[in-house]
């Protein structure tokens, strides 16, 4: 049973990579050469999936003003990785548990005490992060810590790739099936409540989805940089459109595009891949900030001048 599952997943990954290589091989050799190595092919597939789900979730993060929450969950994942290692469990189980526990803890502090949410988040995530660093310093080398913090997409193993694939499928299905309640909750939670939707389930469901995305991105961009992938694509898309669905597509596009371009640049210039991917996304954001036809800085200046002149 386990054996067939293993064989099936290997075949699935091989198939996906083969499909991915078809368009890549159409590119000029100077570009596609980088992707002839098996580790680069795995890295490409993983980082594209990470870019896609982070891009999708980042729309909700940006519109719900959850940037700091994303930051908090991603840091809170660290002690989970260490504890899972100590207990001999797969790392993503520990990461998911501590990430989810921290977000619930933040909500509880916020609701039941006079501490405001930003302070609650700051306390919880730095505390969890510190615990993670202390634990890891005891059990693993500093290179290992660096990989968790900043990602190691070039060394992605089959198991991590499959985890990312499973998380992507789950996230995509949830957003598709619950598209309307999720959008309504992001737009106007009071209205969602008045229409009889269970906003508690939507709220915590979205937080769990965020945690899942962060855990799935751990090996690609790392804990520190995943926050960028959960904010920048959504913020870029928000500058470019006034439609939620279009925003989702643009944001996914920015996420995937930065992943591909960033990966290639990091290979070509032999620099850290997680950081390069984030830098490309940041570049997209500043381009949108300057040149967006409706909400860009240049267009605004132009309109001001026209108003002044007339």
């Amino acid at each position, binding site marked *: 049973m386990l054996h067939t599952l293993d064989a099936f997943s290997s075949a699935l990954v091989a198939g996906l990579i083969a499909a991915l290589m078809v368009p890549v091989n159409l590119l000029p050799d100077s570009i596609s050469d980088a992707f002839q190595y098996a580790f680069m092919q795995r890295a490409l597939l993983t980082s594209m999936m990470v870019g896609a789900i982070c891009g999708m979730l980042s729309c909700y993060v940006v519109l719900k003003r959850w940037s700091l929450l994303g930051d908090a969950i991603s840091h809170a994942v660290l002690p989970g990785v260490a504890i899972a290692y100590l207990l001999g469990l797969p790392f993503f189980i520990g990461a998911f548990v501590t990430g989810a526990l921290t977000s619930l803890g933040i909500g509880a502090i916020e609701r039941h005490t006079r501490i405001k949410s930003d302070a609650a988040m700051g306390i919880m995530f730095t505390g969890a992060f510190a615990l993670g660093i202390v634990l890891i310093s005891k059990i693993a080398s500093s290179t290992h810590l660096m990989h968790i913090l900043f990602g190691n997409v070039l060394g992605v193993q089959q198991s991590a790739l499959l985890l990312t694939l499973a998380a992507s499928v789950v996230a995509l299905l949830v957003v598709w*099936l619950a598209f*309307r309640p999720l959008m309504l909750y*992001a737009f106007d939670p009071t*209205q969602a409540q008045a*229409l*009889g939707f269970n906003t508690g389930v939507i709220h915590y469901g979205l937080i769990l989805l965020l945690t899942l995305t962060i855990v799935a991105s751990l090996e690609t961009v790392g804990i520190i940089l995943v926050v960028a992938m959960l904010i920048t694509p959504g913020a870029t898309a928000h500058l470019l459109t*006034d439609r*939620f669905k279009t925003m989702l597509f643009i944001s996914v596009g920015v996420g995937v595009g930065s992943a591909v371009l960033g990966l290639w640049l990091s290979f070509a210039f032999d620099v850290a891949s997680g950081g390069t991917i984030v830098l490309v996304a940041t570049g997209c954001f500043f381009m949108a900030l300057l040149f967006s036809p409706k909400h860009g800085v240049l267009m605004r200046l132009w309109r001001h001048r026209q108003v002044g002149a007339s």
Partner: protein
Amino acid sequence: MDTSLAMHTAAIEVKGLYAAYQRQPVLEDIHLSLPAGRWTAIVGPNGAGKSTLFHVLTGSMKPLRGQVDAFGKAIEHHRKAGSIAYMAQREAIEWDFPISVWETVMSARYGHMRQDAWWRRLLPARWHEQRHYHAVEKALDDVNMMAFADRPIGALSGGKKKRVLLARALAQEASILLLDEPLAGVDPPSEQLILDVLKREREAGRTIVMVTHDMPGARRYVDHVVLINRFIRGEGAPDEMLSDSKLAELAVSSIEQSAYEVSVAGSPALATK
């Protein structure tokens, strides 16, 4: 007026309601019976708990104690059935959200869409059932906003924003309309349009409950008035409730209450010094 009939058919019945924010009481011992098919105005000073009452009715706030029924059943049941529409204040809406006027009004139908065939829910908007389209179209026509259907909501003026929020409440085709200051900060033409729409909705048999500060408008249009300031301060016909003496009493109650709040808020601090 046939008040006997109104007493038998209460659209909303509130019994012994208490609500508080962070242990600060906002509503105490509220008993209300709002007549079905009538237009009720809820009047009170700022901070009197009017919006809180609406938050309890829409379910976004849990009361400490008390029972809220609609048409003789627990109000949650009616929320799930989509029979309670809520028009929020303009400040409560995220106007930067990337959404068009049409889609905003359509969002009022999301509750009803739960009754549609399951496969429709997985498909894009153009596969929605026709009745949802008709409801949105009619609501936008009613508030004279069909021409703006494709605009992003953030690009609208203040009065038009209010009209979109009203259209959203109308598109739900609910039997109870809860309106939180529908006339605050609107231009005179929009104000008249909103009042005319509400008058027609009441004639069509809907129950309207609105929070308002507009006394002349309330005197002219509504059938029933509730005076509120933490406690119910009066309930009855507009002529009686909106008389100068009654309103003066309500104003005095608000001064007394703020004096009380100062003494409550001040005492622990003094005690620790």
